[in-house]
Each structure stands twice: as structure tokens, then as C-alpha cells.
């Protein structure tokens, strides 16, 4: 089955990004496809490669990047939400791309299920 995933909050402040990551991992482990992960609202902050958590904490930006590389995921950061919050191309971690909100609607249309994680 094809999943679309929407992440509405940044790393750390809310559990949303953690939950979405674990959901994506579990879906892939079961042989499903993650068709696109869309980062909206503060979710755009998940793509900031400067994020440097303490050494005994998880690094969500890196986790998403790596999951993206391993499974060739489409990690899309909303341009309007990103500009407001100061997330630009020069900050993007590997595997993320910035694009329009239409990509979220498209995920809703193309994926069999859209699953939302937020505050």
C-alpha cells in the first residue's frame, strides 16, 4: 500500500516527528511504500542540517535523511512555511527538497492513505 505522511511539528518540541518517523519505519518494514513525506507548519524545521542534539539524544534530521536515502523517500518541505521560518536551500539536510503545498494535495490524491502527525 502507498502511504503519504504529513509532519506538522519540528523536531524535539513535540513528539510528532518521532512518531511519524517510527510509523514510516514500521510501514517500510512491512513492505509498504512511503510515497512522500511532507513537512508543513513547524515541520519544516526537521530539515535543518545545523541541528545538533546532545550526544545521548536522537538526531531527527539525520534519522529522516538516512531513512530517505535507504528507501529513496521523497522528503518535501513546504516552501511557504519554510520561508517564514527561515528554512532555505542552504540549510537543507541531504534528501530534503523544498516545494509547494500542491505536493501535499498530490500526496493526498496519489497515496492510498494520508497519515498526519502534529500538535
Amino acid at each position, binding site marked *: 500500500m502507498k502511504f503519504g505522511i*504529513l509532519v506538522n511539528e519540528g523536531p524535539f518540541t513535540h513528539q510528532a516527528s518521532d512518531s511519524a518517523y517510527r510509523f514510516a519505519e514500521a510501514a517500510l518494514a512491512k513492505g509498504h511504500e512511503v510515497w512522500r513525506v511532507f513537512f508543513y507548519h513547524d515541520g519544516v524545521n526537521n530539515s535543518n542540517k545545523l541541528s545538533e542534539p546532545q550526544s545521548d539524544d536522537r538526531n531527527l534530521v539525520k534519522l529522516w535523511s538516512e531513512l530517505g536515502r535507504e528507501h529513496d523517500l521523497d522528503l518535501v518541505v513546504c516552501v511557504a512555511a519554510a520561508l517564514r521560518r527561515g528554512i532555505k536551500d542552504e540549510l537543507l539536510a541531504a534528501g530534503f527538497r523544498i516545494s509547494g503545498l500542491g505536493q501535499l494535495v498530490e500526496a*493526498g490524491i496519489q497515496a492510498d492513505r*494520508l497519515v498526519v502527525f502534529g500538535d
Partner: protein
Amino acid sequence: MSDEMGYEGEVVKRFMYVNRKAPYGTIYALENLETVLIAAAFDQDVSVVFVDDGVYQLKKGQDTKEIGMKNFSPTFRALDDYDVEKLYVEKESLEARGLTAEELVVPVEVVSTEDLREIMAQQDVVLSC
């Protein structure tokens, strides 16, 4: 389930945007509205629901000058131009807040909890906030 073929043979899905938050205290109301406007361009079956504090988004007379933020409530009036015509407001949410449909910036369909439950259950994609 309710997937149908559109006039160009494309899949048409039922998209529902559920607004549950008040405006200005958080950005969700504004950024969700941005999504609805984009969604309208995709020729899907779009409906927008206002429940709980989401009904406050539609309150007439918003004047944001002194808080320095943009008053986005007039944009709801533009939804009609985008062919987004299904706007539902839950009666119970309005009444709990002492509001009437006359106090809202756009004409809406005021529905009972039972009716809304029914409409919600028929959707393919639900985006709540």
C-alpha cells in the same frame, strides 16, 4: 471507497479540512487556509469544516491592527471564487460559544453533530488541525 472518475478520467477524492483552532493564537488556521486554496486547484471534492474553536475563525469584525498580524478572515470570502462551496459549521460548537451564523463572515451550512459525523465518515482524506 468513494473514489470516482472526474471528467478527465482523473481520480476524484473527497478531501475534508477540519478547523478546530481559534485564529491568531496559533498559525494553524492561517496555514490551513493556504492549503485549502491550493487544494481547490486540483479539482477534488473539497469541504471545509469548522468545529470547536475553529468557528471563531469565521467571526465577523476581526481587526488585527493592534496585534500587528494580518487579518486573514476576508480570505474565507474568496473560497467561493475557488469553487470551494461546502462550508460546514457544527451547531453545537456555535451554541457553546454564544454565536449565530449571522455573525460569520461567509454563508455556511450549520449542521448537527449527527449530520457532521455522517459527512466526515464519507471522506477519503481528512486534514484536521
